[in-house]
């Protein structure tokens, strides 16, 4: 197990560094220096040159990359020239709200989608299954921001249950004090995720239900509850666990769109605002988080699989 973890950690590190290299290179090709964004469009060439020299943007590419990596290993994500703040501080300020949005919607989605998929498989082609299949297929084809706009139209504008404006408080505690406002963003993210997960859960439950061990369990006279909880759930969850691991980086894109729609002051909105200012280090850091999510998602999925399925337990 330890050997496996060490090896996985090693490859994960290489993958994350690879992502940093790709993003770093791309940003340097697109905009070699944020000087103009910082100094303004009317800055003189001499001033730009001086600024570039001062902040090391005249160094060879590899030297700049090495400095970035070196800083990274010291927990320093660089400096946001646009916002005059270190990226680490900026992220520490904005991350809790984004993490809360993603985390709560992910947990809700898992809690809803797994029972829903099993229910659909058990009552296959009945009215409940067909309704859920149609709804999740429509949601699956729907961009998350459209789901959000639909929710705003119905629950905020027509029914007036919630305020369409989310609290502009930067901190998590402040935003949570208006918890009702955060409901729509969380529901939008949850619905999209449920549409993704329940399709898989339904088909894997159908596969599992057709297996002999379910017949054996029923033939032994086990109650339906025991058949489901002891024999079906574990086996039917395996593909969904992998899917959830793969879905983790998708949370970042979803979060970004939802934060943009509801004007929530999280990391996603920061990313969009930083695009306009060529705010390199913010863009790089957020991409880095996405990459970490990808490898961590894969790793967690693999570990959970070994917990759920003793057949693939790693020595």
């Amino acid at each position, binding site marked *: 197990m330890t050997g496996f973890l060490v090896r996985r950690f090693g490859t994960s590190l290489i993958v994350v560094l690879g992502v940093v290299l790709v*993003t770093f290179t791309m940003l340097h090709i697109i905009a070699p220096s944020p000087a103009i964004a910082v100094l303004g469009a009317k800055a003189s060439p001499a001033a730009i040159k001086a600024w570039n020299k001062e902040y090391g943007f005249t160094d060879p590419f590899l030297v700049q990359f090495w400095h970035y990596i070196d800083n990274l290993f010291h927990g320093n994500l660089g400096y946001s020239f646009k916002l005059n703040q270190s990226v680490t501080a900026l992220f520490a300020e904005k991350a809790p709200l984004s993490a809360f949005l993603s985390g709560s919607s992910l947990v809700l989605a898992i809690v809803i989608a797994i029972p829903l998929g099993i229910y659909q498989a058990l009552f296959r082609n009945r009215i409940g299954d067909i309704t859920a299949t149609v709804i999740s297929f429509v949601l699956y084809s729907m961009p998350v921001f459209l789901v959000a706009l639909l929710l705003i139209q119905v629950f905020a504008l027509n029914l007036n249950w919630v305020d369409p404006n989310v609290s502009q408080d930067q901190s998590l505690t402040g935003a949570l004090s208006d918890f009702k406002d955060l409901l729509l963003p969380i529901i939008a993210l949850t619905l999209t995720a449920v549409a993704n997960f329940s399709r898989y859960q339904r088909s894997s439950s159908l596969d599992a239900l057709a297996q002999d061990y379910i017949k054996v369990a029923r033939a032994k006279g086990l109650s339906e509850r025991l058949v489901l909880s002891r024999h079906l759930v574990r086996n039917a969850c395996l593909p969904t666990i992998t899917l959830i691991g793969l879905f983790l980086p998708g949370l970042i894109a979803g979060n970004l769109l939802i934060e943009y729609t509801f004007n929530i002051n999280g990391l996603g909105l920061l990313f969009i605002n930083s695009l306009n200012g060529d705010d390199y280090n913010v863009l790089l850091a957020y991409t880095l988080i996405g990459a970490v999510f990808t490898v961590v998602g894969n790793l967690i999925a693999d570990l959970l699989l070994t917990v759920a399925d003793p057949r693939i337990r790693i020595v």
Partner: protein
Amino acid sequence: MTVIDERSAPATPPAAPEGGDVTVIASGWKLTLREFMRNKLAVVGVAILVFFVLFCYIGPYFYHTNQLQTNLLNTDGVPGTGQPLGTDDYGFDVLGRLMLGGQTSLEIGFLASVIASVIGTIWGAVAGLVGGAIDSLMMRIVDILLAVPFFLIVLIIAHRYGSNIWNLSLILGVFSWLAPARLVRGEVLTLRVRDFVSASRVMGGTQSHLVFRHLIPNAMGTVIVNVTFQVADAILALAALSYVGFGIHYPNTDWGSQISNASNSLSNGYWWLVFPVGIALVLVVMAFNLIGDGLRDAVDVRLRKR
């Protein structure tokens, strides 16, 4: 011993076989098509898609609207006679705008998925066929690129180079060839040990002959299924890019930018600016997903009922 010449046809046509007609064995593609047409949902998908292609490309010839000049005297017009879906913030007719935006969305979706599939197919086929160190190097590159957050990197590049159909197709295509590359490699790994590949090698077929004449055509089923899903994904990705303001630029438009421009008008009660476009977007993406599901089942020989 006399050699029987098979070419000498019998004078009389052979009698009808006993036990009824022998069914003609259709070619693989015909069987696939037949299987596909049996899938009602997939046919519905095709119907929706055909409708929207006609709507977007033929529609403007029958429903003339001025999409070049703004009309500031008639902005945010309520749906009614002469403007079935109302007018938008600039005074453009929404129904006409829907057709124009649909053209962009469909074109970019299609182009991006073709670009992705061509790159992915060639990459995967070469990796699978060559094998060894080159294969693992090529697939490690794919692994690393897969960990690059797709939407973020596309946003970064589109922000600088986006804004027209070709650039956006290229950007979306160049960053979504990884899935087809993996699929095709897997397919090629099973194909390359087949007898017809060995036969081609024995007869002196070159590597490129093998890739382009044998491996890619045989992996085509998988690729086509994937293209369909990729069109859906590309249309959604483009809509998201445009929604946050880094897609197609005004005066050209696509469905995502239409939703983006209109999202602030929701609170004014201008529902017609958001939901007709939204429904069109969802229907088209759904159509591609339905077609993809249908094709996947049809291409998979194991699921086929004869």
